[in-house]
């Protein structure tokens, strides 16, 4: 079973890698999704992630398990909720396998499927107001912080 976790704590990428790296693996593929300064033409101060955990936890686990069994890899994924500052990771996916092709494919599948399906939302807090991001849509929030 893959490791999947959603929580407020800062993601320790090395610790996450240590969960899945063994001497059998020739490939370690780590994707880090960082909070960046510019988004949709706006300057971002920080992000706030919110999740519907009863579904998000189950779905993230299912996606991670599916990637493991489809590509015969080991996978660990962690997503943050709450406030995440610029330059910090919102999500990290680590995949290890004997060769690189499976690791890349499984990693990409995991992050793409997660973004599409898992009920987690970001709220972009900008100097002049906050925005809810829902899929491709961005909606102004009534509270500024």
């Amino acid at each position, binding site marked *: 079973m893959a490791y999947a976790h959603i929580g407020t704590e800062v993601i320790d990428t090395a610790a996450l890698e240590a969960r899945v790296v063994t001497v059998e693996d020739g490939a370690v593929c780590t994707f880090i999704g960082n909070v960046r300064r510019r988004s949709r033409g706006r300057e971002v101060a920080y992000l706030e992630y919110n999740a519907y955990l009863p579904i998000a936890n189950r779905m993230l686990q299912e996606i991670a398990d599916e990637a493991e069994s489809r590509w015969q890899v080991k996978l660990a994924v962690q997503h943050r909720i709450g406030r995440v500052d610029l330059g910090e990771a919102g999500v990290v996916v680590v995949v290890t396998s004997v060769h690189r092709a499976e690791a890349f494919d499984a990693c990409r599948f995991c992050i793409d499927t997660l973004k599409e399906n898992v009920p987690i939302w970001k709220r972009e807090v900008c100097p002049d107001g906050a925005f809810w991001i829902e899929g491709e849509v961005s909606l102004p929030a009534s*509270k500024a912080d």
Partner: protein
Amino acid sequence: MDHDTGPSTLSSQEDTVSGSARLIGAHMPTAGGLKNSLTSGKEIGCTAVQLFTGNPRQWSHPSLTDDEIREFRSTHEQTGIPFLVAHDSYLINLAAPAADVLERSRSAFRGELDRAHALGIPWVVTHMGSHLDQGEEEAVQRLITSLREILEETEAEGCTAGVALETTAGQGTGLGWSFNQLGDILKGVGENPRLGVCMDTCHVFAAGYDIRTPETYRDTIQKFDELVGINHLRVIHTNDSKKGLGSRVDRHEHIGMGEIGMEAFSLLLNDERLMHVPVIAETPDAQTMHRVNVARLRRLAASGAYGIVVTAQLFGHYSELFPGGTVDVLLPKGAVINDLAAALTDLNPALSDLSTHCRFAIADELVDGSAVLREGCTVAALPPSSGG
């Protein structure tokens, strides 16, 4: 609305009933600041509050400051009152024959909607104006044009607050007292999630529609449904009447103490087609008697065969529409997810795209629109994801 003051005829010992999901409240005074309507409403057990967002007897209002808006919204969050509604100024006549009054009214009403939107109030109740003996048919057409234009203009500006047209008593040259005419006005403006109706029991009764017995209540609501549509109801003003059936005079009385009497309110509050619609008392003596009238309405509501209470938990931008992002909705037994979505849209037109925009979940399962809801369940509405 009516600000008659009369003797306190109810015992204030009736103030003991609480703890119901039914949206029940009163028109609360805003003296000392708009937010005071929320704190005093909370104190007397309101789960719905109506307020004026400006002086109802003045044309112009100083625009709300950012501080006022912030204060109101944070008080709303703290008090957790699920449903708010604004009542517009008495001066507004969206059917006015005189061009200058008409323009002034339209501009003032746009202001009402803008203020409601800024404060997070989903509906503005308005009376339908008067023809002032200058031709009733033309007045109806002016009203329709006013409403259509105002809804279009404000929508273009991103305003989500809706208009609830209030049934009137037919006093003087007031429009909209007959269900026929109200139905014509709705049809004239056209279906719009931001257009609904407010039924006032005192006005309906004064206009000649009896609701005092199970038979007359049934006939009147059936007539209302045929001509106006129960599905258009967004709020009910529960007021008893000092004047008799068909008097065409608008004088509000305490619940059960007037010409309408207690049975009508019991029938109304136990009508399962209306149980998710918020009810507001606009009865006299706010300071002393609102507490009593709200408690009385709550007890009447709790007396009948009840439906189920479902908690809706909203995410993304929808989470801002109710305190804490959640609201308890009362639905008939056997209701499904789609019924919940429709009831939520009735409470706030900003939720009209909920069922097309969201997935729904109960606990850790995604469910579709036909999933049957159980008493006490929590339904999460999940907008498109944006994690990663």
